[in-house]
């Protein structure tokens, strides 16, 4: 699935993982979490091999499909995961406020809209104040206002020292990251800051930059 992928993620920054669907973003995130069967290679997370028991409390992970019990209320979901992660009980109120779901706390997972569901799933990964947050397409299906709010939240977390890896297939979200990893067919096309990418490809538009990177690769 992934070939010759090698990179490091700096602490306290938002790293964007971008690329078309099927390029290996989810596989990469799952390998870092330690839930992916890895055929070869080494993944080290916060100084330990990926999947080590010590990491399970320090990594927050949100899957692409909202991993929420549909037959439990938002609050019940969060209370359960807080207990599993050993997070303090008042964390539930904090994360509800952070994702803007305080008003829906008593609603069953199954009755939430798509966007609310993915925010509920995001809330779970914020429990217990993880050092590293791995978010697989957290903003899919959200309206621009909510997307902006979430990116402000991500930046706020990074400012507090949390390391974030956020995958997306929407290029305009790339501009909000400090660093970009652009993947295509399981290979890294670029690993740079948005400004450096724009300079390198001599364009102001990141979508265009992505296309030029592909042309560059094909020409090489």
């Amino acid at each position, binding site marked *: 699935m992934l070939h010759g992928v090698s990179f490091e993620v700096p602490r306290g920054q938002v790293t964007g993982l971008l690329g078309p669907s099927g390029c290996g973003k989810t596989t990469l995130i799952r390998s870092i*979490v*330690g*839930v*992916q*069967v*890895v055929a070869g290679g080494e993944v080290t997370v916060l100084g330990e091999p990926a*999947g080590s*028991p010590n990491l*399970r*409390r320090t*990594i927050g*992970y949100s*899957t692409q*499909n*909202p*991993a*929420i*019990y*549909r*037959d*439990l*209320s938002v609050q*019940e979901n969060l209370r*359960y*995961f807080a*207990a*599993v*992660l*050993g997070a303090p009980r008042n964390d539930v109120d904090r994360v509800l406020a952070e994702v803007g779901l305080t008003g829906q706390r008593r609603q*069953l997972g199954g009755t939430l809209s798509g966007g609310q569901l993915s925010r509920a799933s995001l809330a*779970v990964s914020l429990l217990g104040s993880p050092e590293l947050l791995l978010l697989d397409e957290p903003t899919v299906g959200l309206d621009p206002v909510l997307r902006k709010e979430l990116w402000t939240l991500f930046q706020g977390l990074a400012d507090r020292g949390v390391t974030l890896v956020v995958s997306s297939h929407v290029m305009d979200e790339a501009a909000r990251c400090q660093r970009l990893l652009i993947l295509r067919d399981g290979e890294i096309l670029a690993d740079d800051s948005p400004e450096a990418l724009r300079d390198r490809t001599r364009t102001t538009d990141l979508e265009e930059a992505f296309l030029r990177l592909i042309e560059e690769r094909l020409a090489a």
Partner: protein
Amino acid sequence: MNATITLATARRIMSQLRNDRRTVALMVLVPTLVMVLLYYVMDDERSFAAWAPVLLCVFPFLVMFLVTSISTLRERTSGTLERLMASPLKQLDLLLGYGLAFGVMACLQVALALSVSLTWLGMELAGALWPLILVALLNALLGTALGLLCSAFARTEFQAVQFMPVVMIPQILLGGILVPRDQMATVLEWISNVLPMSYAIEAMKLAVMGADLNGDFWRDVIVVVGSILLALGLGAATLRRRTP
């Protein structure tokens, strides 16, 4: 193993059930209704007395098998299992959580079926009540354990439901209900000897007859407990932290 996580898991499963009242009603009422139906179909206390213990064995097993295999399958497909596998939760915490929550349901189920049978349906109990409850509960746990195991081999809920007859019908046919086990063809008797339900049914019959609970009863109980542990162990092995 972590007691806090296990209990939180059991509580979470109970909350899921509380939010789904119809399932709870079906789980608790159906066995009793079938007992009542059986009573009127047999229309004769002796045949009812012969069949009642069998139903008390089969029902907790059947219901728990179905409920568990479908709920674990849902955990697998909805991504919540992946989330749990990325958390400090241990496989055994999850399995015991399920066992505890559904064990409570099994208690309710058996309690209602037994009280209706012993009062209204005139089922006579020659000995103590506790061996009966013990066997019924063990059967419920066996159903839970096998349900967990089978859910690993099903990709969809349709497949999971289809496992029910596969696991259930041979155990009933070979369990010595229709034909005594020692009168079966040798090969069938061998198969019957390795199926846990054969021992559960025998233990239940002994318990209802009020035979003094000697070696036979305890051997049966130990075999059923061993099967539960085996199925739980195999079930835990199917819950992988890393998946393709």
